């Protein structure tokens, strides 16, 4: 019983981490309608930035993380300026296809700059476990979960109560209409990319704290996709719930099914949930329902 509960807790916390990565994805989607398949690569870039500042330049970890936030923000702005600005108003198909090119490009760049060897990520959080009653919880994941909830609340407030956030929501509805209302579509998309870059770096710092990493870390970007879909592509608050749901069911599945399949269930189970949910509710739990006209 205790073992099952600890599976559920660690599953839920992992789910919250997925929600954090998913948030970067949703923020980009909300503003530019671009389905960013290269999200995992942004996490890798953020991770290697922190590594460079902390291990290569030997800066203290808090300074390394702040500097990485700034650089990843610049990277996000750069991607927006070079790739997505020429595509404003283009059809959605092009927006998705260009992220495929971006995916290939960033992976190549990461390999060239940081090589495919294993790098050891500095410990952001203390490596000891956190003891809550009878359960041992990974401290990094626990702090990460709390940070995720705070960030989600902040972004939710930002999108619903500030001028810039509301503008971005309008831009997400329709680029053409937003333009004709005099809203700054380019700025909205740029803000979204900068915010997404920072979120990816944050997720990398939480996820990788004290672990070895290679460019293959980008797989987490794909693992987070079921959370995005379960929440619906437009909802930020929904991500927390969806992350918890996916994470907890993943923990339960791991507990009961892993002995049968000899491990590996955790990687595939979120996708099975995702397909079932999509067949019942195509726009996810909290996504916008669109009415289509010809």
């Amino acid at each position, binding site marked *: 019983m205790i073992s099952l509960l600890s599976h559920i807790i660690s599953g839920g916390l992992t789910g919250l981490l997925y929600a954090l990565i998913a948030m970067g994805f949703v923020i980009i989607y909300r503003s530019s309608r671009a389905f960013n398949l290269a999200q995992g690569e942004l996490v890798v870039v953020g991770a290697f930035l922190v590594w460079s500042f902390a291990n290569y330049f030997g800066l203290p970890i808090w300074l390394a993380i702040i500097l990485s936030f700034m650089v990843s923000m610049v990277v996000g702005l750069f991607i927006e300026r070079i790739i997505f600005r020429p595509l404003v108003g283009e059809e959605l198909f092009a927006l998705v296809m*260009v992220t495929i090119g971006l995916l290939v490009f960033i992976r*190549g760049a990461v390999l060239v700059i940081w090589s495919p060897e294993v790098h050891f990520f500095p410990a952001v959080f203390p490596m000891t476990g956190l003891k809550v009653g009878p359960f041992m919880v990974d401290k990094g994941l626990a702090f990460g979960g709390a940070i995720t909830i705070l960030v989600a609340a902040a972004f939710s407030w930002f999108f619903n109560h500030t001028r810039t956030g509301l503008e971005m929501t309008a831009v997400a509805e329709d680029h053409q209409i937003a333009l004709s209302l005099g809203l700054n579509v380019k700025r909205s998309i740029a803000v979204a990319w900068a915010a997404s870059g920072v979120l990816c770096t944050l997720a990398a710092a939480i996820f990788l704290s004290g672990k070895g990493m290679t460019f293959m870390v980008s797989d987490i970007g794909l693992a987070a996709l079921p959370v995005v879909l379960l929440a619906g592509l437009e909802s930020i608050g929904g991500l927390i719930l969806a992350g918890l749901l996916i994470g907890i069911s993943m923990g339960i599945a791991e507990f009961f099914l892993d002995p049968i399949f000899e491990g590996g269930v955790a990687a*595939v189970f979120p996708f099975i949930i995702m397909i079932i949910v999509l067949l019942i509710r195509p726009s996810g739990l909290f996504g916008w329902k669109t009415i289509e006209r010809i």
Partner: protein
Amino acid sequence: MTQPAGVYAQTYDEDQAIIRTRPQCYWFIIFMIFLFALPLFGGGRLVGILNIIGITVIAVVGLQINAGYAGQVNLGQSAFMGVGAYTAGALTLHLHLPIWITIPVAGISAAVFGAIFGLAAVRIKGFYLALTTIAAQYIFSFAMIKLPRRWFGQTEGLRLNPISLFGFEFDTDGRIYYLILFIAVLMIYGAWGLVRSKTGRALVAVRENDNAAGIIGIDVFYYKSLSFFIGAFYAGVAGSLWGYYIRYIHADQFTLWLSVWYLGMLIVGGMGSILGAIIGTVIIRLLQELITYIGPHISEFQILSGIGGGIVFASMNMLLGGIIILFVIYEPRGLVHRWNIVKESYRIWPFHH
């Protein structure tokens, strides 16, 4: 598209012919002889490259029908290929069936697997769909490693012996080249016919606007799943050839990364054109081979001695990723559009329009 001057159809059969003029016929025959004779002149390395190109062309043409014509983004093509490879491999290994049975069966099993994920396309629109196909990839990798060892060998994969047809052993690169060439030509011919047919036009209508297509009486549900069925069928056939050529099948060979490349080939070649799929595949594959070939040579130079071969290989990704991005931004219709412009201006020369 305009025809050469003086060429016009007088019967329906002439109007529907793929080869319209005598020079086209000659050039086609010369091209086929060229393809047929290529292994006789080139070394073993060239034949190996050609074999991989042939297999990839089949998979990418299938993806073109699915993504380029029907507009359904599909990131599961390599998983579908894997299903075909495993099916063909297991049938050959356990039941010793001849390849003229196993290759079509491999195609159909992949098609059924693909259509299951395509069914989601009915409810799910746009790019949610890309995600269910990513799910196909994860489920494929999981299933192939976990299914009983007797079937698919789990983590050990499947090892095959050279196949034979009517006593002819396909045991060398040069020999299997002809099998791949024959099937590739057959599949491309089929695709060419398909996209000109009623089905092809329905797929394009679904791509352009599925609501409108539904209203004018096209069964959107049927054609969306059909496009996945056909696309995955091509992938399955390509996968079975892959298995017979490499003679070793493992789930790790069929990655999401490969599917990403297939879409990249489509973008560079041109979406919505069978010729585009072929051009894109050949160009990207040759570029990859070229960089793999010159990579070690670059690091031999004294000045660049600090640069290892691995770096050159990685910068290939940067180069090709950059090419894909540039094509989406500046030439969304791909290389095939450029080729058509060149062809048109050749035909109407010396006039401008």
